[in-house]
């Protein structure tokens, strides 16, 4: 049977389903027998849920205005700098 230490170190991979099946089964077996490790894995799952609940970082209206203004200015400059289309004779 795996040791608690090994289970703790593989817990993230177990949650992410990033382990070979036999390792995953061994951890599942350990978790069924060990309430400490089961509790630890539950808490890690809760950490992931907390991260997902974080409100996305947004920028202020003013900063967004500055970025959009720069984008539009760059687009206009590119249009001005572009060579005029040649006419076929």
């Amino acid at each position, binding site marked *: 049977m795996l040791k608690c230490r090994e289970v703790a170190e593989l817990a*993230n991979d177990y949650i992410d389903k990033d382990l070979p099946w036999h390792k995953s089964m061994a951890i599942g077996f350990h978790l069924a027998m060990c309430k400490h490790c089961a509790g630890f894995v539950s808490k890690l799952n809760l950490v992931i849920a907390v991260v997902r*609940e974080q409100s996305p970082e947004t920028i202020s209206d003013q900063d967004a205005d500055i*970025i959009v203004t720069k984008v539009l200015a760059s687009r206009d400059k590119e249009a001005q700098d572009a060579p005029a289309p040649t006419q076929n004779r």
Partner: protein
Amino acid sequence: MKASLPELEQLRQQDHAAFKSLVTRYHQRLVLIARAIVGDTWAEEVVQDTWLAAYKALPNFQGRSAISTWLITIVKNTATTRLRKECRLVSMDTGFATESDDEVFMDADRFTPSGKWANQLGDWGTDSASALMEQQELQHLIDVAMSKMPVQQRAVLMMRDVQQMEVVDVCNILDISHSNARVLLHRARFKLYETINAYLESGEC
């Protein structure tokens, strides 16, 4: 997040208000990814170039992928082009720390020599993330812990656990190995685990 149909149509028409809303929502995330690729020096410029490229490409955006994925692809390409142009591999700015593939995540003293938990783990009193987030002080501590993470660690956490991107995509975007991505993600999660645990066990951090 997928853009709603009316919003998508507005974006395709390069509607300024819809574009500004996009900038408001995604700028910080793109800066974080750009910093993880090119470092602090060029990140803001790279993201500004990304917005210009995105604005010009919006009329052709089909909406087959989430707009966030589309923007992340553009920032990755813009950042990579910038790196090549600067002929440097990595900007070693403050806050840009690479991580080794060292697999040790937890202190040895958490376990007995026989590999069992040395101390019983405390009870967090809830299984609900929402319930945890209602504690304003804890929310603040989590914000601080995330802001102090090395930039690549935070970028991987954001891409995997917030954007729920596949590991292979995270590796491609940040140009890191699968094992490096795992280590970064595990460290980030453990850091937050420790933050929450310390607060709930002692009421302080």
